[in-house]
């Protein structure tokens, strides 16, 4: 065990709130976890030595945090819930909520809701994610979103979580999308400095419900970010998820989509963009536990010089899950020979009447394409940006929310410039 994990276990005993009963289960599991090594399958390509000895200031529970404004997104008109190092900046008592939605802080769930909400906890997130367990036992701050059955929530809900230099923080989001309800939730992580945060979100989708989901993990070069978005799909529910991740000192994101009922449809597009020397690790799992489910996943990554990307795309089709349609595609673009990508599709199929397609490719930036653009007067670095855009544009265009895709364009341009080997 690492010193850091030992400290986590110590601190976990001081957490005492309405979630304590469910946290106890997680704590028991966490105590049995061995600290991952290179031989641990889930961490084969991502070393945790940076975390093992980490000693950062813990985000205080009542510490007043500097006023932070959410980065504005023109035309989005979202309900913004802003946190700094996991601590709320938004005054939750002042929120104007759409009909059918309740938004509360994790610790502020009233007695009447507690039973039901605590049942959401660890419903979608499997217990094998080490940092998910850490989040289970330590995250005292966070957001609970409860969308009533049938509610059609027009205003997107955005949870912004800034990290700051020298601080460790843990943040949890629990979302219940009632039957036939419709909602958009954006998890927006930003900030820089030598920080460490875990941010896990769980979504339970009722039958025929629709969730539009975004996760932006846009942390600076120095940050360590561990997180996950996990979805439990109800009957005929629909998920459309877009994940955009920057690399950093260490970013690891786990996603799980669990087809726990029939006829669910899940679409997930992931884009990861690594500047030189950064690390980014994305593990995605799709569990088809019930028949007639559909999943479409597209992940595209661009990897800068001396950066390292890890993509693990698992599709697990259980024996009962006949008539499943599952597609997974991962494409990577290396900007330099010094970059590294470890991509691994993992298929486990136990049903015989299914359609499952998967593929992974790694390509180098094509010099002849760069040359062609340059012969038309476009400077090399701008040509690189254009080729990078070309590589991910299709996924950006598929984002259902146009305000978000518009907002993303200049950020990507900036990002691509930062990714260039100068």
């Amino acid at each position, binding site marked *: 065990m690492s010193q850091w994990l030992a400290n986590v276990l110590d601190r976990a005993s001081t957490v005492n709130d309405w979630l304590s009963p469910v946290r106890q289960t997680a704590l028991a599991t966490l105590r049995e976890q061995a600290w991952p090594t290179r031989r641990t399958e889930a961490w084969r390509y991502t070393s945790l030595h940076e975390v093992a000895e980490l000693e950062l200031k813990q985000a205080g529970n009542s510490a007043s945090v500097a006023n932070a404004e959410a980065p504005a997104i023109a035309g989005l008109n979202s309900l913004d819930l802003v946190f700094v190092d996991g601590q709320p900046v938004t005054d939750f008592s002042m929120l104007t909520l759409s009909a059918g939605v309740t938004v509360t802080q994790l610790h502020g769930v009233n007695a009447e809701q507690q039973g039901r909400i605590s049942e959401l906890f660890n419903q979608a997130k499997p217990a094998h994610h080490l940092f998910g367990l850490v989040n289970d036992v330590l995250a005292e701050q966070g957001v609970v979103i409860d969308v009533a059955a049938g509610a059609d929530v027009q205003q997107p809900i955005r949870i912004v979580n800034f990290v700051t230099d020298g601080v460790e923080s843990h943040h949890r989001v629990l979302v219940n999308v009632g039957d036939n309800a419709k909602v958009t939730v954006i998890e927006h992580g930003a900030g820089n400095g030598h920080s460490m945060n875990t941010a896990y979100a769980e979504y339970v989708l009722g039958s025929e419900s629709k969730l539009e989901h975004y996760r932006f993990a846009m942390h600076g070069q120095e940050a360590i970010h561990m997180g996950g978005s996990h979805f439990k799909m109800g009957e005929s529910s629909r998920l459309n998820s877009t994940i955009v991740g920057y690399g950093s000192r260490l970013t690891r994101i786990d996603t799980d989509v669990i087809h726990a009922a029939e006829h669910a449809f899940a679409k997930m597009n992931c884009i990861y963009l690594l500047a030189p020397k950064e690390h980014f690790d994305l593990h995605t799992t799709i569990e088809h536990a019930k028949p007639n489910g559909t999943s479409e996943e597209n992940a595209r990554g661009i990897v800068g010089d001396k950066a390292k990307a890890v993509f693990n795309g698992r599709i697990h089709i259980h024996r009962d899950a006949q008539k499943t349609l599952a597609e997974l595609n991962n494409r990577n673009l290396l900007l330099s020979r010094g970059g590294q990508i470890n991509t691994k599709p993992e298929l486990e199929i136990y049903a015989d009447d299914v359609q499952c397609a998967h593929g992974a490719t790694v390509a180098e930036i094509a010099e002849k394409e760069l040359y*062609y653009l340059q012969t*038309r*007067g*476009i400077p090399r670095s701008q040509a690189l940006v254009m080729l990078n855009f070309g590589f991910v544009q299709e996924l950006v265009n598929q984002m259902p929310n146009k305000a978000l895709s518009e907002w993303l364009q200049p950020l990507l341009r900036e990002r691509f410039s930062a990714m260039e080997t100068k």
Partner: protein
Amino acid sequence: MMLTIKDLQASVEEKTIIKGLNLTINPGEVHAIMGPNGAGKSTLGYVLSGREGYEVESGSVEFEKQDLLEMEVDERARAGIFLAFQYPVEIPGVSNMEFMKESVNAARKERGEEPLSAAEFLKTAKAACKQVNLPLDFLKRGVNEGFSGGEKKRNEIMQMILLQPKLCILDESDSGLDIDALKVVADGVNSQRDGKRSFIVVTHYQRLLDYIQPDFVHILADGKIVKSGGPELAKEVETSGYAWLEGHEEASA
């Protein structure tokens, strides 16, 4: 003088391909370069464009009083050199429209002009697209993505029309075209002849030169210009092919 190439020697992968080439082009002139396959015609275009891997071993190239060989690929392009490729590359994901807008605005910036707005550009691009007889939806498609050979060639000519270069190097813009497409390409080129703009028309066959009247015809063989003359030289090639070159080489050796 627009372009002066002196004693140019250039190699690819340590193999010398251009072996002492001299050529002078004045504003407004059309020079045809003909020659057998493998003579080094495309290589000459690449060297003039500044392509990586094409090493200049000796000689000089002056373009509008600048040392061309010292300039980057994109600088040469903005200075007014345009190369229409024999085999244009496909770039899926980058739209033809965005690509051309960025190129045109890079050229405008170089000339000290304001960038075109999206609407202004669209108008110009539509006109150019029509001129080379490409459907308008080609602007929205990925650069050359899934275009036929002929469509790629016409797309090159469209870019030339939009970029308004000073020196256009057309590398076998006629190959693989049927007669109608050939006329479209030739008309596109002719529409750009204004007495100042110069052209190097590289072609294997005489056919294109029925439509684009050259001022000079050069025969390039084994990395050198072995014969220069007027349009009549092209006719000569048509009747006797390149077989006579063997004799010529022996004679000059």
